[in-house]
């Protein structure tokens, strides 16, 4: 065989540079939530990416227009299903803003305590899942263990571990149980211990840090333009927290810090959630200290709140009231409102339009996740394929909330 008589200079060899299309998802083990990314790769670098959402679209906003205002609660539960209590409280506050009523003090502290517990479980899920997607399974199990303890409290209070449907317009479904304070304080202490342990476990791991540090950076200006809110925006150095900027419930009366990131990478978004868990725990303790042991939870307004069952069965007035509230639903005066609270992922807004009947005319949920996922394209373009996983994990996309 003749020797190859060609001088091969490596610099002259032209490798084919055709971009390669790679599809990730919609159901992929390293993505939490159903989302599809069609990526155009050049080597391992992502040139373009098309993020496709909507695989979990269930038409909530349409369904809300069919029932009564109270029947919206189970739907908002299933939006952000790792912190449903925050959604419940957000929707109650929106309706109450329209009705012009304020719930009693006991209910406000109770809502805050439950809401912050839900926020802790939300952040634990995000950080745990993020670690798991990078191969660290132990921290995930630890954090889920901690989350389970919180869900035990929730189960004791509401009767359901995940989809509580516990919020009501003008109050809560039930007053706090007798052991709520004691149980919550014990759980918060245990959770903080587990968080500390998990923190040590992951933050001394060189591989874990290298996967996150300097990956998925985004400038504060871009994050604002993309409409980011919540931990992701704060990681970019913008200290916007609805609880601090526009306090609702009793947030103006409690002490807490708003942690802010510096480098706006995946590690910052990971750490900020840990820091917020500690702040939430601090808030929960203050709420427990100030939660009155007795007093009404629901407002005293028969047009809004269901009468006690004992009266429904014994008095005609309560029977009629019950019937009207169930069959026609509570009436919200015609008009529109935009009410916003700090959800697990950022500003959770409700734009409600009422025509004065018992059925909502339009319920628009402003999902923080939807806009944050909209920024995924910006975050991963120019990164390596392997970086998609930590980037996506750190944004904490919750399918139910993003797709509704």
């Amino acid at each position, binding site marked *: 065989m003749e020797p190859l008589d060609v001088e091969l200079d490596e610099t002259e060899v032209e490798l084919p540079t055709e971009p390669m299309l790679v599809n990730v998802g919609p159901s992929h083990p390293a993505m939490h939530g159903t989302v599809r990314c069609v990526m155009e790769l050049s080597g391992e670098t992502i040139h373009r990416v098309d993020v496709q959402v909507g695989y979990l679209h269930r038409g909530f906003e349409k369904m809300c227009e069919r029932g009564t205002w109270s029947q919206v609660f189970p739907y908002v539960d299933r939006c952000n299903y790792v912190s449903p209590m925050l959604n419940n409280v957000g929707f109650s506050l929106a309706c109450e803003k329209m009705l012009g009523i304020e719930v009693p003090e006991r209910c406000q502290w109770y809502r805050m305590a439950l809401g912050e517990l839900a926020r802790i479980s939300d952040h634990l899920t995000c950080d745990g899942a993020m670690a798991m997607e990078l191969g660290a399974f132990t921290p995930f199990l630890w954090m889920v263990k901690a989350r389970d303890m919180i869900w035990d409290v929730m189960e004791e209070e509401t009767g359901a571990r995940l989809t509580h449907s516990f919020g009501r317009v003008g109050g809560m479904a039930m007053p706090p149980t007798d052991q709520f304070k004691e149980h919550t304080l014990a759980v918060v202490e245990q959770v903080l211990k587990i968080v500390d342990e998990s923190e040590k476990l992951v933050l001394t791991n060189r591989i874990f840090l290298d996967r996150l540090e300097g990956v998925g950076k985004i400038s504060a200006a871009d994050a604002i333009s993309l409409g980011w809110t919540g931990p992701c925006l704060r990681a970019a150095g913008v200290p916007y927290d609805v609880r601090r900027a526009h306090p609702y419930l009793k947030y103006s009366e409690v002490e807490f810090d708003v942690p802010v990131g510096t480098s706006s990478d995946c590690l910052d978004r990971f750490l900020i959630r840990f820091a917020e868990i500690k702040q939430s725990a601090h808030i929960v303790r203050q709420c427990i200290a100030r939660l009155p042991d007795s007093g009404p939870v629901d407002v005293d307004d028969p047009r809004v709140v269901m009468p006690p069952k004992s009266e429904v069965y014994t008095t005609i007035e309560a029977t009629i009231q019950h019937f009207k509230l169930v069959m026609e639903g509570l009436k919200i005066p015609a008009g529109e409102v935009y009410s916003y609270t700090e959800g697990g992922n950022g500003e959770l807004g409700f734009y409600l339009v009422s025509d004065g009947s018992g059925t909502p005319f339009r319920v628009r949920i402003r999902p923080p996740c939807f806009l944050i996922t909209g920024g995924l394209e910006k975050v991963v373009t120019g990164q390596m394929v392997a970086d998609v996983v930590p980037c996506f994990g750190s944004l904490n996309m919750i399918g139910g909330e993003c797709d*509704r």
Partner: protein
Amino acid sequence: MSKALLDLVVAQFGSAVLGTHSQHGDDTVIIAPSAWFEIHQFLREDARTSIDMLTDLTAVDYIDREPRFEIVSHVYSLAKGHRLRLKTAVGDEEGETVEVDSLTALWASANWLERETFDMFGVRFVGHPDLRRILLYPEFEGYPLRKDYPADKIQPLVPFREVPNIEKVAPFGVDEGMSFGRQTHQRGYEEN
């Protein structure tokens, strides 16, 4: 503070502002559709307003009104902490030509929000670079959040999608697979 914001918008765009209100403390400006982009641009660029975030953009279908659709945006200033709701009414009775200017040139968040509004209401945003359906699939018929879309409507089956340059095989034939995935649900449908 926000009252001043309302006054500023009214003073700047007197003829384009059709009304204002502050129901439940939410300052609202109702504007003419032709000034939709211009007013948002002013709010974003003027130092007195310094609105830097488009928090939300959606539509409401008032089926008995003319124009039928109301496009609603919520904007927020991180620096000054004030919010404003802007509304404009567009669209004919049938909802065939519902058009408004796109805000994608001002805020990146407008991209997905407008795609969602298009997906759900069929509002066409003029100047949007990539106006596709986002939550639903391309073959979806109709716009589900319109009031004349029945909530129990069942969509027709979608034929297997052809993708150029990619060879794909349908997962199952007409007689295979799970029967519940292939029902047609057409009214008056009879088994033959």
